[in-house]
């Protein structure tokens, strides 16, 4: 498994979206998120975007007030994951129009659907924004 989890955290360190590709109990997730967020948020702009934690490699990127964190296993390509994070943000931007924390809070399930289209079993499947958004837009139309 390559991507183990995707986290979206605000500046205050509150988790806004969490998607795990392996099963962890709620308590394990909370503990893990707490540790990672503390580690990553303490880092400054001119430090590198990779942090090693437990047996994960965390790759994170900050967009305005939101932190995107992706936990991968040791063999994953860090720069490719950075590109993937950027791709997620662009996709969300296209759907919500300049995405912000509130968009994600009120449309959490949409954000999850996007991630589902992009990542499956921890592998990146789709990076084409049109392909990712089609099923979601279709659903919006039908409801």
């Amino acid at each position, binding site marked *: *498994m*390559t991507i183990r989890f995707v986290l979206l955290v605000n500046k205050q360190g509150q*988790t*806004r*979206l*969490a998607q795990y590709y392996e*099963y962890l109990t*709620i308590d394990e*997730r*909370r503990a893990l998120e707490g540790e990672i967020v503390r580690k990553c948020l303490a*880092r*400054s702009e*001119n*430090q*590198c*975007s*990779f*942090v*090693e934690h437990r047996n994960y490699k965390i790759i994170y990127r900050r967009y305005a007030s939101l932190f995107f964190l992706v936990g991968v296993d040791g*063999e994953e*390509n*860090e*720069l*490719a994951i*950075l*590109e993937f994070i950027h791709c997620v943000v662009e996709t969300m931007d296209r759907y919500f129009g300049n995405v912000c924390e509130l968009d994600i*809070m*009120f449309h*959490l*399930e949409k954000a*999850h*659907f996007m991630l*589902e289209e992009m990542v*499956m*079993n*921890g*592998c*990146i*499947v*789709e*990076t084409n924004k049109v*392909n990712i958004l089609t*099923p979601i837009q*279709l*659903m919006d139309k*039908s*409801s």
Partner: protein
Amino acid sequence: MASSIMESLFQRSLDDLVKGLRLQMIGESRYLAKVLDEVKKEINSTDAATKVVALQKLTYLHMLQGSDMEWASFHVVQVMTMPKFAYKKIGYLAASQSFHEETDVLVLTTNLLRKDMGSKNEYETGMAIECLSRIANRDLASALTQEIFTMMTSGRTFVRKKATLALLRVFSKYPDAIRVAFKRLVEKMDDPDPQVVSAAVSVLCELTLRDPRSYLPLAPEFYRLLESSTSNWLSIKLVKIFGALTPLEPRLGRKIAGLLCEQMNKTMAKSLLFECIRTVTLGLTDHAGAVKLAVDKLKEIMAQTDPNLKYLGLQALAALMPVHPWAVADNKDTIVQCLNDGDPSIQRQSLVLIMGMISESNVTETVQVLLQYVRSTDPIFCNQLILSILSICSRACYEMISDFPWYVSVLAEIAHIPFCEHGEEVGRQLMDIALRVESVRREVVKVARDLLVDPALLACVPLQGVLCAAAWVAGEYVALAPLGAFELLEALLQPGTRLLPMAIHAVYLQAVLKVFVFIATACYQDSSLGQQNNEHGSSQFLGEGSLEAAMVLIISNVTPLVNSVNMEVQERACNLLGLLQALEKPTNSEDGERWRDEGFGALEALNEVFGIELGPVSVHAQGRVVVPEGLDVEDNLDALGPIGDYDEILLEAGEKRPTSVYREWDAGFVFTQQSNDDPSLADASAALLAQHRHRHENYYLPTDAVSRNYPPPHFSSANTPTTPEAAAPSTSLDSSMLGESSQLWTKPRQTKARRPVVVKLDDEDDMPELSAHAKKKGLKDEFLASAIRDALATDESKQRVDANGLESAHRGHSSRRHRHGQHSTKHPENGSKHDGSGPSQPDKTLVGQRIREEVHEGKKQTSDVSRKEQGRNKYRPSKHEIMVLEDGLSSNSENEREGTFELKENARWKKKQQKQRHSHRQNQHHARSSVPTQADSVPPIPDFLL
């Protein structure tokens, strides 16, 4: 009906919920409880819309607040079955968020998923596949393998892609599926749609990383794809696959080196470039051209300011270091600069590189540079630096150090760094060096003195370990600091020592005893000399009256410690005061004469005991002690407790005259009592010690041979080389048993003229290392691998049976053996997880510890050294325990289930396979001739590579 309308009218909507959550920052928990109560009511509603909204709210709470939603799993399944797509989607989201392998309602989803996978709406199908890939357990995977298999040839790209990717989960949960679907997965690499190709490669990439050997036969396919790939994502995956494959097959490296170089030159994407470099470092290290190009690219990258690139560049260099150290040396300046970087990760990485490059020739300069950084960086990195310096310099018995006085000064400098948290280690090394390197002892004693006299250090908690070592060194080698002996005594007794932990204070007191004995002996010698020739009235080293001053100093400072709560401190204080009392000078001069002789005798004896030189103890020393015949080490010794008690024997056998005790061990007893008529305190203790040594000869270190007039076994004293004949004791003292290598005895290491001799025990290099490199591999992966091998072999193995029964039978045998080997290698791994990697047998350790404890009684001054030795002997499970562990592994319940399951399912699979083989023969053009056919480990790849 009316009630449901009311419900939906007054239901809190999702937006309300989120708004409420955002408002209720303080009273959150009460608000949450209220909302959850509402949800519990609403979710039972008969109205679909109300139920769905309730579930949606619950999912939100689960995702945002981590509320439990296990209880609602049945409702999730209900919503999943709703016909409306939007509702269904909410149900599926809830399922993929909250279900896991043990969820009990998974059974109910099998048919639902099957139905949705067959839906006309491709998004519904995709949703079902997606959900399966999240929640599948073994049963679900086995039940739906057929559906996934069919969908891989669906006309719709969206479905094909998802089905292909779902295989990864299905394979890992249900390895038998590989027999069905693997061939088709390989075919998907030829799919007209690049998305599907990418999905297939993703799955194969994951599988390859888990068990590369099985996928070597697919190398030609991967090569072809990489050649024609236009997508960076795909190229990265393919290059990664080669990174796993090339270390196994050198010919493959030769083949792809050119292609990789081409990719490195061509690509604009840094991610792909890094993947290529990583593959070069993994498998192409002997292709000079590729390595050169990679290093050039790394140099370009490192020159940039982007911290990400810098970090990755350093990592790549670290990977290259073991094989191509020149690559690191080339970038030395950049690496050293990175030590000053603002990013701790980069600092750490560059430290790793610098440590890797340290050699005997540059150790001095490098450590000096690092020490400069130590003073200027933050405490955390500072301690990392210190730890690295300490560990690299002490590696393999200080093999890198030739200038020991310099290294001792480095240790002293480290001890004075304010943030230093590694006082224990510094102290350990100071003691270790003092023990092992005779020529540098004077410097160590000087450093110890400097540390001891500084009252400011006493209050510094992290440095107490250093002070403990300093006190021991000062006491043990006080003879090397004769001018400072009195000063040492003052330092050891200064009032601040009360701040020290009791254990360290006890060490201080023992050092006081040693220093005092030294001073007193010197004074006696002087006074007796003074009697003979009157012109030398005063001492050479110590001033007149310094003995009296020392006694006053000790009595005033040690007397309060007699009431110490710590037993060891109390005991040592009492011993010390007792000795002083015995030496108290009588008033009249006639007694003074006698007093001098007696006191001198006692001091001589003590001095002799302290004069015995201590040596390092091998970690494996205990293991080498041969168990004497008739000693049952498996036996529980508790019952022997009262019998084995040494004191009791003394009492019982003692009758009335204590000396008769010794008759018991009379045979060959070579102890010469120095003052038989009036045995002093010291004599008695020396007698006990010698006697104990006699009883437990085997367990004493060779160094003890000193006391029996053998030449000292310390080849460190280079001016008096010991011959093996002289060194080997005639009695049962077997040197090789105790860790001192006989080879070393005969040939003192004199390879480097410059370097002082370091006492080194023969087996210290193979210190048990933590099994950090032992890769953990799940049982599941093994099943997967064997299933893949079988799948790759399926087609032609049958034909081969007909054609050449012998050959294939042999292959079957070897493959079985191979797999058996895999299983058996698990056992030691598993065992080592539980053991403390101790060097000796458990029961022997127990016995050994007892023996060692007795040794300690007789030889208290070694306690500091041997305590360390004891610490190294950690617990290790007995043979019996290991066997139990192994049993547990081999009778793994999963294994059993696997077996029984296969029996049931076998018939069905056979049929399916036959059908497949039939259809397969019809599409012969699909079957690649190069697709591998062998079950065994290293299949030849002739067409492609030659």
